[in-house]
């Protein structure tokens, strides 16, 4: 074997130190760009950079090759500073074909590095991408630092002699591109070499080919005269501790497993596959040794109903979906609410309406989860703000669900679900326990009151198998305390009030809203969910510019934090940036009679920092 197990890092060329860099790998959806991006993320994390990633891929698994619709991209921002977003624009774009160039070029900084697979720019692929002339041969790319690399030829050459077919050889191109990027940004290739061994170990010729392609890419950067210098991004000063690169959906799955463990429960996850939530199911189904039971139900409605059944039986019951699935679950969510059983409903939001933009991000399900059920049907809502935060939010959702005997809706979105960031690995033993209790047996004759309530207005969670606690629950309105069916007008009013008050009481049980920045001033930026990173970065920039602006990022959306109204009053203006047409803003206006200003975008993409900075400046005036 000619390969080494250690990655190459030493270069003899000139090194330029950068604070950070944003790189996007783009190619056909079959070109392995998601894998390449994931590897670049992992190795950047290993270097000690702070990282944020943004995978962007089409809904079609394999759209016709070479077309604009089939372009898949993965953006990685790595930095020696603390960062919160995957970057507004690109310092470097790798385009594996003309379609990838066409759809991504607008995001590349002028003067940015543009690395293209020259071999893919043939007449046919140029036509598919809608290029009349080859952009590599006219002057249209003059404003960029263009590197024309014959990747197909070089990769085929690198794997020659391994007996691979041309098709198999071409599949290694993404590793060639990775090797070149690793050289360019001084990344260590050993994590990727380990990955190759793990993933392709069973197919030694494929593993060897990928290793050779990776090394060939690195060597190409080192030897070709086109690249005169390369870069270095120093480790970031993150808080001390052990880290791993964490994606939102994985963090959510692990948070659920942890919540089950610290509450002494087995986890039940009933779900139906839907983008972008399915990876939660995939992850959970791997961890059955934690007592995790996953059920892939026949449809979204069934998934929600399995959760109600499992909750009644005494499990930690969770379902996950996205907007269209949540629409189908609505009736059953109402049942979960009136049964007053603890459970978690995850909505990993995507672009809507209807099927919408399945692989793109949006925050447009807030009003759906708040109001999308018949009748007066309050359910608490909390939202994750970043990939790593999904872990904490999952645990918090279960804490609220069990303390208040209620379903809890957990909002994530496609951006944080598939994005990743460094995650400070917690000590499992330091995660606070969640106390869950079930009433014990009663002797015959003693009446059990399933709808008696404690000081928080939560009812007892009596589970089947407990002697003397046999009781019936259902979707019909129930009599106070006994839970028997009741059509009494006063009782219905009372039960409606109590259910609302119980959810409102959660505000007493969660932290007060915090504000970063001045306690009063010209502007408060009020945000929620996955826009945390962009808003945080934008507000910090504006504060550095000397603007009087503060930032409040909501985790608790129902009920809203107790002190929110008072916070809003301390600023002359309130700006609510959202990836929807103004849903939180509508709530803020209704609830606090505050003339909140919206900044709204529904393009399937996250906010850029520049957009937010511009809006903040404009709003302050």
């Amino acid at each position: 074997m000619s390969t080494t197990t250690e990655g190459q890092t030493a270069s003899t060329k000139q090194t330029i130190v950068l604070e950070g860099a944003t790189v996007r790998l783009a190619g056909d959806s079959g070109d392995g760009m998601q894998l390449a991006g994931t590897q670049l993320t992992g190795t950047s994390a290993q270097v000690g950079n702070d990282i944020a990633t943004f995978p962007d891929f089409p809904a079609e698994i394999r759209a016709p090759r070479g077309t604009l619709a089939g372009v898949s991209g993965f953006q990685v921002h790595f930095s020696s500073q603390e960062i919160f977003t995957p970057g507004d624009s690109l310092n470097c774009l790798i385009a594996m074909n003309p379609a990838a160039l066409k759809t991504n070029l607008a995001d590349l900084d002028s003067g940015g590095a543009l690395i293209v697979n020259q071999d893919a720019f043939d007449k046919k692929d140029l036509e598919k991408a809608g290029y009349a002339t080859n952009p590599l041969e006219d002057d249209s790319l003059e404003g960029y630092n263009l590197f024309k690399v014959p990747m197909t030829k070089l990769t085929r050459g690198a794997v020659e002699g391994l007996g691979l077919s041309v098709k198999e050889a071409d599949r290694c191109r993404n590793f060639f591109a990775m090797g070149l990027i690793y050289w360019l940004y001084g990344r260590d290739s050993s994590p990727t070499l380990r990955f190759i061994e793990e993933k392709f170990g069973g197919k030694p010729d494929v593993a060897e080919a990928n290793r050779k392609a990776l090394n060939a890419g690195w060597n190409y950067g080192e030897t070709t005269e086109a690249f005169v210098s390369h870069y270095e991004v120093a480790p970031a000063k993150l808080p001390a501790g052990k880290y791993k690169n964490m994606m939102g959906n994985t963090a959510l799955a692990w948070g659920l497993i942890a919540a089950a463990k610290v509450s002494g429960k087995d986890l039940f996850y009933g779900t139906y596959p839907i983008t972008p939530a399915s990876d939660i199911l995939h992850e959970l189904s791997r961890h059955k040794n934690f007592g995790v039971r996953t059920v892939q139900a026949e449809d979204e409605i069934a998934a929600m109903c399995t959760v109600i059944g499992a909750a009644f039986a005494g499990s930690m019951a969770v379902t996950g979906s996205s907007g269209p699935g949540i629409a189908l679950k609505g009736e059953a969510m109402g049942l979960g609410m009136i049964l007053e059983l603890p459970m978690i409903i995850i909505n990993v939001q995507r672009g809507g309406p209807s099927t919408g933009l399945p692989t793109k991000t949006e925050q447009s399900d807030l009003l759906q989860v708040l109001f999308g059920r018949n009748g007066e049907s309050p359910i608490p809502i909390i939202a994750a703000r970043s990939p790593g935060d999904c872990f904490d939010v999952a645990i918090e959702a279960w804490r609220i669900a069990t303390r208040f005997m209620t379903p809890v809706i957990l909002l994530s979105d496609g951006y944080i679900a598939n994005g990743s960031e460094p995650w400070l690995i917690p000590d499992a033993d330091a995660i606070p326990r969640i106390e869950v209790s079930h009433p014990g047996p009663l002797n015959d004759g003693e009446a059990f009151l399933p709808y008696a309530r404690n000081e928080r207005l939560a009812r007892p969670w009596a589970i089947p198998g407990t002697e003397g606690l046999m009781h019936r629950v259902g979707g019909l309105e129930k009599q106070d305390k006994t839970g028997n069916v009741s059509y009494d007008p006063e009782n219905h009013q009372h039960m409606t009030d109590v259910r609302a008050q119980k959810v409102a009481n959660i505000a007493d049980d969660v932290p007060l809203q915090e504000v970063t920045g001045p306690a009063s001033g010209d502007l408060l930026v009020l945000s929620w969910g996955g826009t945390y990173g962009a808003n945080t970065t934008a507000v910090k920039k504006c504060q550095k510019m000397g603007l009087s602006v503060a930032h409040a990022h909501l985790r608790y959306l129902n009920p809203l934090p107790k002190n929110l109204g008072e916070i809003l009053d301390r600023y002359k203006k309130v700006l609510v940036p959202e990836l929807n047409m103004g849903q939180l803003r509508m709530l803020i206006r209704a609830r606090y009679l505050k003339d909140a200003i919206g900044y709204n975008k529904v393009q399937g993409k996250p906010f850029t920092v520049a957009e937010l900075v511009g809006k903040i400046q404009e709003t302050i005036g």
Partner: protein
Amino acid sequence: MSTQLPVLKAKDFESDQDVRWCPGCGDYSILAQMKKMLPSMGVPREKIVFISGIGCSSRFPYYMNTYGIHSIHGRAPALATGLKSVRPDLMVWVITGDGDGLSIGGNHLMHVIRRNLDINIILFNNRIYGLTKGQYSPTSPLGKVTKSTPMGAIDNPLHPLSIAIGCEASFVARSIDTHIKHLEATLQRAAEHRGTSFVEVYQNCNIFNDGAWEYTKDKQTKAENTIELEHGKPLIFGAKRDKGIRLNGLEPEVVELGKGVTEDDLLFHDEKAAEPSLAYLLSRMRHEDGFPEPIGVFRAIETPRYDEELNKQVAAARAKRGEGDLNALFNSGETWTVS
């Protein structure tokens, strides 16, 4: 503490709620036979759960002194799937009707049966929507005039047992609300079966569809119009037990015994046949086509049960990898340390 189970009586299964079905409804009998049968199973009340959807039959759980959920329309099989998956120790009954189970909940019924979840499903078939006051149901016959079909129903009816068999049901049976001994015995067979037991009960709605099953109940005609299935026995029926069912190729036919036809020429019932073809053929024998309609157990076979298999996987994962350790999970894969 005594470990001996108390001997329960039918009355012990009665809840404190007033039964509110219309007087004369067939549901009363099904409730009574259930209460009568359950003590024989020796399962404590707290280990039994009744789950229903929406409709007249779905009020059933309220009247049983067990655990119960009156859920939403058509979804009881899905609730049962979640419940039984995490608590295979419980005895779970799903109570449904022709509208609840075959119309709005058809998908869930199909899937719970194919999973062979270890539960018992009782479908009260009255061939009408009762709770919504008299629209045609998925089992109403063609031409049925109801409030919603003043010129007659034009949907072909579904046949519950044919559907269950098509979904690979491991236990399929039929009984009649007024055949109380037969009904009780059938419920008991269902309860004893391990896997999804699917029981269709011909149930009379005396308000909106009175007499729909009269041909199976009337003293004069019931012996001619029904045939009681017994495992290993020939299919014989009639007041004088002088008629039988013979196979002619792949078709059943009614024959008279004597006149050259002996019992040995008849179709013998085999509820344990691995192939469901014969059970399906029996489910297709209909009154309007001149056949007696079979009652009893059509099919009872042993196949893997979803809840058991799911929990086996959990046990296997624990045996292989040990009980999950959060710290080990968190520290798995590529990590790095910042000092």
